[in-house]
């Protein structure tokens, strides 16, 4: 049985003549532990798809299941709990909270969890250690580089050990060297069993994935396996 299952997932904005279909009836399955990259030109519906998969954006039609759970049949609170327990998000612009230290940013997903402060701190420090930032935990985001911020965003996404990680253009604001560090990190997380769905324009990043979903005009036009060894991506460059 598929871990993530999307059936005729549709998202339409506006009504009548002004209606715009961002995602037009997409169906696919993702197995647990897969590393899937979603590619497509700008405006093709990648980000809309990701927000729908992230239980943030209700589809106009279709079904979406994760681990047997019909996500959009859940109430608002249950959907928030689902996000907290199942998902980690990495945003293109990192989206760190500027007035919280790096450690506090990483602890953020645990803020609503009943757990001792000591335990939360230990988990956050462990997450920062995994991304190689244990020595800078008390700095503010503004005092760190883009690459470091991205790694903090990854640490924040994995601190509560969610089974699924969604990454939206994680290399969008990074140089080549830092991109490689970040992608290596994502790959190691995937190797540890985390299911990763990543939206990217970058062929180099896509080379880390083992499967590619190509989207065009809100439709799934290609679903192909990749070898996940960075090298095979040249064949699918847009």
């Amino acid at each position, binding site marked *: 049985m598929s871990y993530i299952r999307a059936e005729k997932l549709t998202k339409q904005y506006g009504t009548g003549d002004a209606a715009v279909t961002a995602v037009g009836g997409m169906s696919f399955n993702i197995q647990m532990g897969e590393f899937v990259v979603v590619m497509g030109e700008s405006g093709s519906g990648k980000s809309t798809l990701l927000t729908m998969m992230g239980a*943030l954006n209700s589809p106009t039609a279709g079904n979406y299941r994760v681990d047997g759970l019909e996500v959009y049949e859940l109430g608002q609170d249950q959907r*928030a709990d689902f*996000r907290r327990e199942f998902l980690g998000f990495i*945003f293109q612009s990192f989206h760190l909270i500027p*007035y*919280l230290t790096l450690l506090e940013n990483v602890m*953020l997903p*645990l803020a609503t969890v009943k757990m001792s402060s000591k335990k939360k701190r230990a988990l956050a420090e462990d997450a920062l250690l995994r991304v190689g930032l244990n020595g800078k935990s008390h700095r503010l985001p503004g005092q760190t580089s883009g690459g470091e911020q991205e790694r903090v965003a990854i640490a*924040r996404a994995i601190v509560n050990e969610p089974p699924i990680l969604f990454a939206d253009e994680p290399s969008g604001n990074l140089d080549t060297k830092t991109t490689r560090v970040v992608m290596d990190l994502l790959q190691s997380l995937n190797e540890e069993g985390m299911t990763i769905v990543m939206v990217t324009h970058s062929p180099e990043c896509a080379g880390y994935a083992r499967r590619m979903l190509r989207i065009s005009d809100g439709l799934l036009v290609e679903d192909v396996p990749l070898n996940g060894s960075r090298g095979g991506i040249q064949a699918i460059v847009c």
Partner: protein
Amino acid sequence: MTLKDIALRNLRRRKAKAAFVLAGLLIAVSTAVALLGLIEAMNRDIQKKLEEYGANILILPKTENLSLTYGGLSLGGVSFEMQEIRQADLGRVKTIKNAANVAAMGPTVLGAVEVSDRKVLLAGVDFQAVKILKPWWKVGGTVPGDSDVLLGAEAARILNLNAGDHLKINGSNLQVSGILAPTGSQDDQLVFTPLSTAQSLLNKQGRVSMVEVAALCTACPIEAMVSQISKALPGTKVMAIQQVVQGRMETLSHFKKFSYGISMVLVLVGSLVVLVTMMGSVRERTGEIGIFRAMGFRRSHVIKIVLLEAGILSALAGIMGYLVGFGTTKAALPFFAGSNGMEVLFDPILAAGAFAVAMTMGLASSVYPALLAARIDPTDALRAL
């Protein structure tokens, strides 16, 4: 990291906005506290004055006489050729239930006498009791002994007598021991002697014309005491002097209503300041709220953060507002009241009230912004980042 930590960090980061909300609440609370504190101080002052005023209960014989004006007060009938109160009966006042509240009892015998061919009113009083009953008396000279008199300022002027001079009353030779400084009351026109001397001169041994009683009235039920004395002395008419303070009480009541009105307006304005500032703060934080929601914060968590921020500021404003209001009352009291004796005391009820008003204002005004924050669509919020 808890929701409280997030609220605290945000307040620290948005200092200007936090200060604005705090100022809005602080001005409203401190002004209300200052006004109410002022009223309370003035109220206490009136009570104190009432005690200081001395006699606040009059015991008179039951007569059919017309009323007199005494000391600017409208009193009951006092006649000089009438039935009097037996001095021996006065001991019964000490047996009433609230006897402990009787600070002083001053029996007075009154009678018209002739001095230097002029009719004057002779008053025999207990000078020990007078010290409590009429604390404003200033005697130039000494308190009279058994064969002395004390002259009211006007009486001394008209009779052309000074301390040390002698005068004759009903054949007795008496010395002027002192002159009373002007009081602005009818006392200025009287000739005072010790009670026993006057009773002897007026041939009214064992009888008194009236009794002035000073009751500690802040805590004591004055009306109840009047009733108790009436029962103890059946042949008398017992009255509470209330006219003195009635006017001031009415003025204070108007001022109280005005202060409540001003406080209400300030509370409304303060609440609006909180509402507008919190709305602005929520709008500024749309992206941040989107991130929280993406990370699994429920709507109720977002509401809690906003209300926690408002709650922290409101609690601060409650405490500071009381302290500032208390200080303002202290500073403003001399200007408003012009009385040196007035004091401002810590009032736990007012302090608790100030805290409760600040909390209610802050939280009630933040409910709508908090709901607005909770309704923010996380997708829209993240897209805006």
